């Protein structure tokens, strides 16, 4: 039920992001959604893309600190209050969300999140009839 996300460790300094984007661009990999979380010293650039496995190898071969992380991508209707409902269901069950970001995909809202309690989260998703995105949707 999880999908693969690139987590890329970058220095908090100009010029570090473009190096990563350049490598992905040259391999014709499409970025579906991305977000940067930063500290004073470093940042983590999180990317959903069209071919995460291939992208991972390319970045790694070029000496980039990268990890393939398992995240859940919940789809919700593009309407007010839908994110709150989904997160409430998880939260009520005691699922701890490490990070989350959202984007629009083909008219639907997508909440991408990572949790260390995957099996509990899966149960909540199943019981509440929450829809998940599949990696194949991102294939070019």
């Amino acid at each position, binding site marked *: 039920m999880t999908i693969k996300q690139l987590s890329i*460790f970058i*220095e908090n300094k100009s010029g570090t992001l473009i190096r990563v984007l350049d490598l992905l661009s040259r391999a014709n990999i499409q970025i579906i959604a991305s977000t940067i979380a930063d500290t004073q*010293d*470093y940042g*983590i650039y999180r990317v959903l893309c069209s071919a995460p496995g291939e992208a991972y190898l390319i970045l790694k071969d070029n000496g980039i*600190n990268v*990890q393939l*992380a398992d995240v859940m991508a919940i789809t919700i209707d593009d309407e007010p209050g839908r994110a709150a409902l989904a997160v409430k269901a998880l939260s009520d069950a005691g699922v701890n969300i*490490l990070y989350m970001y959202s984007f629009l995909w083909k008219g639907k809202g997508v909440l991408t999140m*990572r949790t260390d309690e995957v099996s509990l989260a899966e149960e909540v998703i199943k019981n509440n009839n929450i829809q998940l995105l599949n990696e194949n949707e991102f294939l070019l």
Partner: protein
Amino acid sequence: MSRNFPPDTCPYLHEEMETLTREQISALQLERLQATVRHCMNSPFYKQRFEEIGLKPEDIKSLDDIRKIPFTTKADLRDTYPFGMASVPLRECTRLHSSSGTTGTPTVILHTKKDLEEWANQVARNLWMVGLRPDDVFQNSSGYGMFTGGLGFQYGAERMGMLTIPAAAGNSLRQIKFMTDFGTTALHAVPSYVTRLYEVMQSAGVDPRKDTKLKVLAIGAEPHSEEQRRRIEEMMGVKAYNSFGMSEMCGPGVGFECQEQNGLHFWEDYYIVEIVDPETLEPVADGEIGELVLTSLCREAMPLLRYRTRDLTRVLGRTCPCGRNHVRIDRMRGRSDDMMVLRGVNIFPIQIEKILMTFPELANNYLITLTTDADNDNMTVEVELEELFTDDFRRLQELTNRIQRALKDEILLTPHVKLLPKGTLPVSEGKAVRVVDKRKVYQ
């Protein structure tokens, strides 16, 4: 009750020694060097070293003959650890100081009762020189224990007859209370700690000029620039005198600035001072920067001959308006090895490397940067992540904290640890640059 001190108006505690002419200094030094070399033949280390090169004590006929004697190094002290350098039996020793450095084998310096007395005499001479008298109140805010700045100044200030406050380092509010309650007139501390005290005074609403009786600061044990000294004087409203010492010679007391503040008088009745080119080991001319080499002339337990201090400095002059002809040495200009001195703590890059290498999460490259921020020395250690093993910030922060704690246990101060992606740090050709010193100390 007479305490055998000169009258307060006399500028010298040991007038006869302090005002020797150059000829008298040379004659005394030759006599003491010959005696020291003879005495060193009781040391297994020196006995063997002299035999190896066929040198006999009676070959030292002039001061220039000192150049026939091989240099002694820190490595020699390590190799003879713990007692192989001693020139007296252990039962004649009453004190042992060991290096705080944790690079492999530590070093040991032994003292006899007379050594400790002579050490106290040197410190007392210095404190008298900068205008302190038995009526003064001396607060020693220096670390005690193995760090010689504690006991060294303690015994010296007592020898001079002052009321002494062994406050030791830390607990700034208590330090300030001592100063105001006990009427402290003289304070000894590492320069960065004086700055820290001033900051705490400010936040506690204490004005050192109005609320204390302070008149003299003694600062040393960590490199600092002239600019830094002037700022400290400006803050505290008193003169700050530079002190030089090293445990190998005894501790603080070896050299001290007089009221001219134009170089440190190194006491030539106690030491022979040489400045040599660290590469060729040949003497350099006065005024030229080289490595300070010291020979102790009055030590019993463990005299050292031509000890390479690794400190870089130069001779400023051999006369002084204060009437003392003991050589004037510039403040230390750097090191001929890679030792860093930070807040009074001696640190070698290898200590940091050793710790970093115990973390499998880290790649091999690292960079140490030293900066001065509001007069405090700071260290940043940049390290590279071998693999991104998590994308959870908490776990990365936890790794940073673990590295920081392990480094602190080793080097005794807390550096800022900066995690970087692999391949970020410059890869130098040849010898890697591991330390960037951006402090203004050596300028």
